């Protein structure tokens, strides 16, 4: 069942939670609503569920307007951020609650309810905990029970509010994988809210990036990461290294630093964004750029060595971060305190007039100019 959000507005007093939001959620896909707190993502989820009403606009499920339909009649599954398990009911009773709430003529018999609960318990791999109370479960177990409870009535749509927010890192990763597998098996239309970009990129088929009550960009995780359309999305998806300066003589200049920018109009402000993996480190400046940086710290943990650097002779709002493979690290053996030069490979340029970035590939420009290297 596809979901259409049509020009939704929502205000809380003077605060605009959602500003004219329109959105298509494709059927059978797992969609992430990603944004910082206050971006309106949870409000949007609650409006889709019917737990909150919008000031104007429509919500359509598979083409049918459900805006005025009560939550009870929307046939959705909702997993709350803090699970909201009924603390005075056992795990099995929690899962059975939705089935037992069905109108008498639709309600399955006692025997069938018991069987369906057993099946769901097996699905969440917790059949041994049927008679426990929520307070006796770990966070991850609670999360699974909440999911089973939401799925018991076979909803057309599954909505999850920060599903992994309250769990520790290890459990979160396991559950993420498990949810993905579950989704691939059952193919309900799912939307989950998160502020964790890694979670959104890893888990979803489609990511909706939100900021200040508006949709910034919608795309698949790969496309989103490769082609952010705004500074906000750029900033929000992983670390970026920035150079802010003035374009002069085909170069972006700030203090002692410069980067060649062929074909860009002179005398305008520009911001260049570079991902950590789009930059190499060298002991001397190249013909393309001179970006002196001093190594502030080196982190060896992970599949890559992460090096943090401070600009030398120029300025940047944030620390620079550059990734280096372990073999490269062993060969170059950079140490803390040394002065190095960043060599950009690919960058994304924001000019003062344009909203969308221009991607610049120096390897390509290099080849065209037939420079030496």
């Amino acid at each position, binding site marked *: 069942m596809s979901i259409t959000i049509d020009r939704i507005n929502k205000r809380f007093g003077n605060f605009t939670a959602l500003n004219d939001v329109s959105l298509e959620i494709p059927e059978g896909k797992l969609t992430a609503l990603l944004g910082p707190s206050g971006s309106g993502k949870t409000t949007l989820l609650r409006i889709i569920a019917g737990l909150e*009403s919008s*000031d104007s606009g*429509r919500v359509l499920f598979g083409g*049918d307007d459900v805006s*005025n*339909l009560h939550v009870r009649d929307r*046939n959705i599954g909702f997993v709350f951020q803090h699970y909201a398990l009924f603390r005075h009911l056992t795990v099995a009773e929690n899962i059975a609650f939705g089935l037992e709430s069905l109108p008498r003529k639709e309600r399955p018999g006692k025997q069938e309810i018991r069987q369906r609960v057993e099946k769901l318990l097996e699905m969440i791999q917790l059949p041994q905990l049927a008679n426990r109370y929520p307070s006796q479960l770990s966070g991850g177990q609670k999360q699974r029970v909440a999911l089973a409870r939401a799925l018991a009535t076979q909803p057309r749509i599954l909505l999850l509010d920060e599903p992994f927010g309250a769990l520790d890192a290890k459990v979160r990763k396991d559950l993420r994988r498990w949810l993905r597998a579950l989704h691939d098996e059952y193919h309900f239309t799912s939307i989950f809210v998160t502020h964790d970009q890694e979670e959104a990129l890893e888990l979803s088929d489609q990511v909706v990036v939100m900021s200040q009550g508006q949709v910034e960009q919608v795309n698949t995780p790969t496309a989103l990461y490769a082609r952010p359309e705004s500074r906000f999305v750029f900033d929000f998806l992983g670390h970026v290294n920035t150079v802010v300066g003035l374009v002069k003589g085909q170069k972006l200049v700030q203090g002692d630093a410069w980067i060649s920018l062929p074909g860009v109009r002179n005398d305008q402000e520009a911001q260049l964004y570079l991902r950590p993996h789009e930059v190499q480190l060298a002991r001397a400046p190249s013909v393309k750029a001179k970006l002196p940086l001093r190594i502030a710290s080196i982190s060896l943990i992970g599949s890559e060595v992460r090096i943090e650097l401070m600009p030398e002779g120029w300025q940047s709002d944030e620390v620079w971060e550059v990734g280096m493979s372990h073999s490269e690290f062993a060969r170059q053996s950079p140490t803390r305190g040394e002065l190095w030069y960043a060599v950009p490979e690919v960058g994304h340029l924001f000019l003062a007039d344009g909203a969308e970035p221009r991607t610049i590939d120096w390897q390509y420009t290099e080849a065209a100019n037939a420079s030496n290297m």
Partner: protein
Amino acid sequence: MSTSAQAGAAPVRRFASRSKRVLPGFGLSLGISLFFVSLVLLLPMTGLVVETAGMTLDQFWFTITDPRVVESYKVTLWTALAASLFNGFFGLLLAWVLVRYEFPGKRLIDAVVDLPFALPTAVAGITLATLFAQNGWYGQWLLKAGIEVAYTPIGIVVAMAFTSIPFVVRTVQPVLEELSPADEEAAVSLGASDSRVFRKVIFPSLWPALVTGVALSFTRSLGEFGAIIFIAGNTPYISEVTSLMIFIRLQEYDYAAASAIASVVLLVSLVLLFAINLWQGRYLKRLEGR
């Protein structure tokens, strides 16, 4: 709204209000609440308004400034103030001891603190009167020290203090429990003396609750009646509280006078109630960091 909203699988309530409530029972619960509040709490006030409206301004003023009545205001105010200040100290002490220390009998003390709320005021009254009477368990010792409590204003203070003990304890206790040990440890590690830590670190987070507790205790004491009349002796101009003045005027069938005095008392109580609520709202907001 769309004029052509297609009906979905389930019936669409097309004219349902946009601001519909998700949880059920709003109309029912608010209806019961408003009906009850209007009928039980607000409607009776009209009787007082009607009664006092029947008096001229001069009559009203004359009644509420009658020397005996004025004396009762004074007695009530100072005894209530003394009782609530005593409870400020005693309540803080009890809350501190109950939160900070472990000792035998702690659970019992914690339970017994609420006794004055559970014990009928008349029972408290005759008990205190018996204890503090000249031949009572406490009275005979106090008499030797030259202190008379029963049938004097001090007796009023004792009765008021007794009936309002729980207020300060129960408002200060949770705040004291929430205090983080880290703040104290930080201060101690910086070399501050204990009394300095108390004044500079603990007391600043404690005093809003303490003020609330004392104010509640004061409000309750102003209106106390049952516990007082047995021990106060009720001597005009000396140990008559305002609640008793109202009662006496009623027994004289002087409803107008009783109403006039009661309107003064009621006004003061309502002002205090709203002030305490505003104050609590403000300092709670500050504690939550909003």
